[in-house]
């Protein structure tokens, strides 16, 4: 990094101070930059805007109409009084060329009177929803129970969704602009009085230090903000569900929105955060905990099943009991490959199916899943390329990896089994133990906004287990997790109205 910064320092574009005329000349090169001149009464008014950014209806009904009707009534009119006649909020009057440039590029119209050419009024005419989808159902993180509202590409809508449920003045939005080309609006949301100040400071500092050209999606930020960028594990939860983001905020985390991205980043996150689904909280706690544990088991199974198959069949065949040996020999007797090649072949097939399914349109993808899953699976068993048992194991492993609610984490889980398979192929069961050791050490080293990733396991926090492996009943999750070091530990005041049974009296 340092070498690059040294190399490129001299090439950095210098901030030139333009005059207003130079700016307008430059913008005029673009065909969608419009200039409307109107003459009403004594006033000669010119309006500049980008055709492609401005809502024409707003321009006609709120600006042009009012200017033409109201302006002639005034004998002397100063540009500061524009707010009196144009019914659009927050009209800004400025001489600063840089501000004018940014605002014009954001869909503002610039109004200028001929007698004071340097002073300009900026009116917001941006058509917020032009070209954006209106439908905000959360598609990728589905839950059967609970609200289905998800974030959309428009940051205004997203912030609105947040404010609607967190009705407190303590919800603070801090706005920043990021990206030398895209000038994306980034909003950092947190609840004042809950969030840990040090964490917030870290977040603000990290976000403001980012240097990038175009912020396409919040997941870019996710990588740029990471404490350790060379890790397959996602450092922060990114979700498109409103309820999940709100829950994170209430717990004392920070949420980062980027305009144009339907995903919001919440952090600091821990490993367990990636395996919680909002549905856990909508179901009774016993069911919620049960399904969460099923999910954890799914992860372990998905990571370990095929490596164990490789290890056992390559090196430790003594471990297979007599009764199980028959079916395994029967299904593997015609397979010409060593177990590791067999496993890699099938795992890569499944990865291909998944990748192809993700790239194709939904309707085709369904067909592909059926064709790929059934036909290829069945045919490869019949052609004796793989064994039946392995097919079951790999398919179950793939299924189990999809139970992870956060897509990024489920990708990670799908990835990390490949090194483990290789370890198992080289050193058998010992290799698996080595790999798990490596994994645990790696997870132990990871941090998310300076917060340990493996908490509450290591550093051990017994109290925070209430909402990690299991989803405890709500009486037990009244306190916020202590590893976030929230400034207010209690989420709400629990009523101590416990019903007494006759046996307690």
């Amino acid at each position, binding site marked *: 990094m340092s070498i690059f910064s040294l190399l490129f320092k001299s090439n950095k574009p210098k901030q030139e101070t333009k005059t207003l005329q130079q700016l307008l000349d430059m913008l005029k090169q673009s065909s969608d930059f419009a200039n409307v001149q109107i003459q009403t009464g004594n006033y000669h008014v010119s309006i500049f805007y980008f055709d492609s950014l401005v809502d024409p209806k707003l321009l006609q009904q709120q600006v042009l109409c009012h200017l033409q009707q109201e302006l002639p009534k005034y004998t002397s009119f100063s540009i500061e009084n524009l707010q009196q006649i144009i019914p659009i909020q927050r009209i800004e009057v400025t001489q600063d060329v840089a501000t004018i440039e940014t605002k014009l590029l954001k869909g503002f119209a610039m109004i200028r009177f001929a007698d004071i050419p340097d002073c300009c009024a900026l009116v917001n005419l941006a058509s917020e929803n032009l070209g954006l989808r209106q439908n905000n159902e959360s598609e990728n993180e589905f839950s059967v129970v609970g609200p289905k509202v998800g974030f959309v590409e428009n940051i205004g809508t997203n912030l609105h969704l947040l404010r609607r449920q967190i009705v407190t003045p303590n919800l603070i939005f801090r706005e920043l602009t990021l990206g030398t080309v895209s000038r994306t609006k980034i909003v950092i949301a947190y609840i004042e009085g809950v969030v840990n100040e040090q964490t917030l400071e870290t977040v603000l500092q990290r976000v403001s230090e980012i240097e990038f050209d175009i912020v396409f999606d919040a997941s870019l930020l996710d990588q740029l903000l990471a404490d350790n960028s060379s890790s397959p594990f996602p450092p922060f939860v990114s979700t498109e569900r409103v309820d999940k983001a709100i829950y994170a905020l209430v717990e004392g985390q920070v949420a980062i929105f980027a305009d144009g991205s339907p995903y919001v980043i919440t952090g600091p996150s821990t490993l367990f955060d990636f395996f919680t689904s909002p549905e856990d909280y909508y179901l009774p706690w016993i069911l919620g905990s049960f399904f969460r544990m099923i999910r954890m088991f799914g992860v372990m199974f998905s990571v370990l099943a095929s490596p164990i198959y490789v290890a056992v069949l390559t090196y430790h065949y003594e471990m297979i*009991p007599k009764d199980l040996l028959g079916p395994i020999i029967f299904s593997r007797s015609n397979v010409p490959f060593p177990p590791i090649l067999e496993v890699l072949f099938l795992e890569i097939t499944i990865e291909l199916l998944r990748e192809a399914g993700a790239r194709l349109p939904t309707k085709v993808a369904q067909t592909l899943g059926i064709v790929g899953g059934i036909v290829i699976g069945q045919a490869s068993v019949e052609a004796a390329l793989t064994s039946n048992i392995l097919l079951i194991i790999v398919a179950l492993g793939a299924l189990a990896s999809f139970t992870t609610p956060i897509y990024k984490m489920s990708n990670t889980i799908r990835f990390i089994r490949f090194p483990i398979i290789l370890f198992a192929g080289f050193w058998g069961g010992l290799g698996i133990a080595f790999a798990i050791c490596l994994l645990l050490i790696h997870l*132990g080293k990871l941090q998310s906004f300076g917060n340990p990733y493996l908490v509450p396991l290591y550093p*051990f926090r017994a109290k925070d287990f209430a909402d990690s492996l299991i989803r405890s009943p709500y009486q037990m999750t009244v306190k916020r997790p202590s590893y976030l070091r929230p400034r207010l530990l209690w989420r709400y005041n629990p009523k101590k109205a416990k019903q007494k049974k006759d046996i307690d009296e």
Partner: protein
Amino acid sequence: MKQGNRERFLVSPFFVFFTIHGAQLGVGVLSFQRRLNEIVGHDGWISIIIAGLAVHVLIWMVYKIFQASGEGKDIVRVNIECFGKWIGNLLNAGLLVYFLSFALVVLRTYIEIIQVWVFPLMGTWQFSLIFLLLTYYTVSGGFRIVVGLCVWGFIVPLLTIFPMLFFSLEYAHYRNFLPVFDHSIVDILKGAKGVTFEYLGFEMILMYYSFVKNAPQSQRWAQWGTAFTTLLYLIVIFISTVFYNEEQIKHVIWPTLTLAKIPEIPFIERVEYIIISTYVFVIFPIICLAVWAVTGGLKQMTSLKQRKSLPIILAILFAASLFFNKREEIALLDQIVSTTGFYVLIIYIPSLYVFVSVKKRFQSKASMQ
């Protein structure tokens, strides 16, 4: 290094439990029944309790040494302050060599087990290399990561290996214990000396004491760690005494592993393969802790940065592990290290304790006057 900065590297007193226990429980527990049986027969459990009590006293002494010599010092500084620059550094160097050889014994013995039980044809260098690469990755993360590994090294084996031992109670002969006190006191004490190796490792606290937050308060956890080790050993010796008879156990080199052959689960046979694999979690923290201690000590002595000395130490360990190939050589190495360890525990720590406390008394008298 500023004090405020250093706070980030410290671990809570609670974790001393894991480092003490993790360092003690090593390869020894797989084979100590036979050695113990040769000396005290079925009365081995008494020796284990005696050895455990001795370790409790030694830990108490270690804490006293550090309390007497002031906050935030590790053994390197204490040695130099007590014995002068030359003798002190000689002692330090001796300790570091001892820790290094301790890591070597654990590494080599475990690789031997792998070679005997699982992979007879694989060379030592393979396992040694991968072990040390992993050690590099761990130790380069700092002391907190090493401690984290110790925690895993406690949880994972406790959940997977430990329950397997109880299957063999199905074939228990509880009368094997009788008669109790069949051996002389001298024999029992000799037996206690014989299990020194099983308790070795806790003395690494000499090195990492200054990395514990509120270190004096951690004594409780250190004592609990040792108590837990003693408890585990008692359970193991109990199970193996009731399972094997005295003649049988003489012919088994790794009685604990042989015990693990007993359990049968519908879909797994020969559980000992799982146990040997999972034993990585037991072995690995010890090696990491020892290597960390050595590099940490070097840093104090020569101001050589840990990141620089780490590859050198690992290379030495790797080369050394290739020298011991035969069973007898490994057994000899085992013997030498456990004897050295015995004298470190029984002579060095108590005499340092006496020295430091006498010195402190003189100093406080001097300051009173």
